């Protein structure tokens, strides 16, 4: 086993901490999600470790519950985005011709519209529930994954070993999943880490604008929104979820970097 580099260790540790606290939220959160337990914007004390929020709920508990929602939505949306994007992207690259043209131009069309505005429009006419949120975010984001996987796969699809498989008479599924996908995996895995971070930011933005996770449920973006007025009075409650978002983003990024490094230098990795 090779040694894990220190940045990756830090990243793994912090990411692990966030995920653990998300899973164990019902056990470790001192108070309930929307339980009003104190005064408005109380400072940190032994009772409320991070103080209370704009209507007197415990901020630490809300951060832990909010993290659970944020991470869940981001992971699910990344999964949706990846499965749709990479399958369609690989398919377009292998089939080529008008199928590729049709898919690629459609994706260009979607990408021509700013993602946030598109999401706002869709969400304002749809009922804003968590599954809808995940689907909308995932599908909008899959355009990026589509482009990446199509570009990577078109490079691989012209290599001799793919031609050899075609000459053998192999079907499309074998060519996509056994010949091309294993070779496209390392850039895709690294991209998955990046996409996850964008999802965290995306859902936070939507919630901040009021079209994401709906109250009394909370995610980090929502908590920032609820407490933003406190900043004027020097109350740091809005900054804490922001710090959480930044910490999660950076630590996942560190891990993604390391994974990219490892998978591209695996034995049999493509040189260069």
């Amino acid at each position, binding site marked *: 086993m*090779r040694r894990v580099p220190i940045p990756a260790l830090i990243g793994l540790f912090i990411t692990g901490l966030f995920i653990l606290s998300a899973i164990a939220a019902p056990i470790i959160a001192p108070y309930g999600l929307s339980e009003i337990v104190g005064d408005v914007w109380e400072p940190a004390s032994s009772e409320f470790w991070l103080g209370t929020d704009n209507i007197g709920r415990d901020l630490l508990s809300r951060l832990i519950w909010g993290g659970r929602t944020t991470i869940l939505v981001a992971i699910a949306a990344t999964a949706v985005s990846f499965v749709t994007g990479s399958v369609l992207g690989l398919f377009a690259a292998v089939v080529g011709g008008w199928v590729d043209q049709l898919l690629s131009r459609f994706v260009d069309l979607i990408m021509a519209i700013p993602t946030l505005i598109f999401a706002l429009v869709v969400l304002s006419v749809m009922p804003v529930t968590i599954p809808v949120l995940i689907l909308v975010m995932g599908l909008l984001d899959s355009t990026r994954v589509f482009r990446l996987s199509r570009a990577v796969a078109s490079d691989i699809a012209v*290599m*001799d*070993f793919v*031609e*050899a498989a*075609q*000459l*053998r*008479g*192999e079907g499309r599924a074998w060519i996509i999943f*056994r*010949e091309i996908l*294993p*070779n496209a995996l390392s850039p895709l895995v690294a991209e998955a880490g990046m996409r996850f971070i964008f999802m965290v930011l995306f859902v936070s933005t939507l919630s901040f604008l009021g079209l994401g996770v709906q109250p009394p449920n909370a995610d980090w973006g929502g908590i920032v929104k609820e407490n933003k007025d406190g900043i004027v009075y020097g109350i740091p409650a809005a900054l804490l979820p922001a710090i959480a978002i930044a910490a999660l983003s950076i630590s996942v990024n560190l891990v993604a970097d390391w994974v990219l490094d490892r998978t591209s*230098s*695996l*034995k*049999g*990795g*493509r*040189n260069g």
Partner: protein
Amino acid sequence: MDKPLLQIDNLTIEATAYPPGEAPRRITIVDGVSLSLEKGKVLGLIGESGAGKSTIGLSAMAYGRGGIELSGGEIHLNGREIRKARGRVLRSLRGAEVTYVAQSAAAAFNPAKRLMEQVTEAAITHGRATKAEAEKRAVDLFRKLGLPEPETFGNRYPHQVSGGQLQRAMTAMALCPQPDLVIFDEPTTALDVTTQLGVLAAIKAAIRDQGVAALYITHDLAVVAQIADDIMVLRHGKTVEYGTAEQIITAPKEDYTQALVSVVAKDHEEKNTDLPPILEVKGLRANYRGMTRDVLSNINVAIQPGTTLAVVGESGSGKSTLARVITGLLPLSAGHMVFDGRRLTPDQKSRSRDDLRELQMIYQMADVAMNPRQTVGTIIGRPLQFYFGMKGKELRNRVVELLDEIELGEAFIDRYPAELSGGQKQRVCIARALAAKPKLIICDEVTSALDPLVAEGILKLLADLQEREQVSYMFITHDIATVRAIADTIAVMHLGKLVRYGKKSEVLAPPFDDYTDMLLKSVPELRMGWMEEVMGTAAE
């Protein structure tokens, strides 16, 4: 007596390797090599890939490619030690006293600048000539190197001249600063034989006229015999033999050198059969989409069972296109193909599984012809699984059998392609083709990327397999020596046409047509003075 221009004593070059999953370790690339080179002489460095010949060549300008360290010994150039030289000293040295000609001129020129600017750049920046002088000198060199319209040649961009011309321009670039020493790193390896001859002659004449010394690096003994005064044979970073060109070629002392010298001459007994042909191609025409010019026109060839058809030609002759048409990757525009008595459909997608199975292909570049993420066992096993539905133990046993047949053995079954040498990779590709129990294998330049001794092994393996399995080959190559070693029938192609076709004994016997004559004459022969002979007859 004068001190030699370049004197290398006991040079050791090391690098750090990072094998996956292991601790980094030091490896020795060049081990205690000594040589000396006098003004105006040419020293040939010869060896297989990985022998350290390029590394030694570059060390003459105290340069090591990424991660390489010139760790021991002494390099004296013009009487001063340069191994430990740094910064300013090196800058004044490189491009002035020592210059370099790379293998791939196409990759070494900046595509965005005119040739003249690049050819004269080193001479001007080193203050060895003013702009006007340098340009005059460049034009002189263009003329000496036999480039067309030497006065205006420099105004062209790299993409506007041919590969052979670009290689000459690069030689001009190296000679323009009037250096003392030029390092030629396989300057003709990437060229066709007929082009190679011209470039080689031009380089030799230019070296003689300018009176510079040269290190000439190549893997082709026949080439170096034409140009070098002394030859050093290298293997695994060590000197095998070092002597005058005459001695190395006519009386090699070491076993390895003898093997290198004898590899060149191999002949193969022509087989005759009266069986109906396994593949018959009639009146074949093909062109690429959107082009009106035929890439192939009116090709008629046939291959008898258990024999080998060699398709010979230079790059652009359409020989690989012929393979693509036969395999059904490129549609034909006229003519037809009969395979084992059945009419072959032009499109590969509509062929029956048996047609696909019985017609296999082996590629030039074995490392891109295998999926780097699959083990040797999967690569060879897949055709067995796919065509014969083999599974489990039966599959494994057959894969092991095939591995034995290609002389690799069971130990290789779990390896990845990256863990194989070039020759081993090509063997695995052969096993993959063989696994399908084909009747015809198309071999597209399968030995071109390999070192001569390894290539010889592959050819021998193919010949043995043919004897045992009665498989036919269509062997595409540009190398006449390979053709002599393997072919029963020969098709010579030029510009998409068949210029000569028949039994080997007929094709390689006079009277020749003009093109075949030129092709045969351009193949370097392993004796000194051969080039002068050929160029002499060509001038008449």
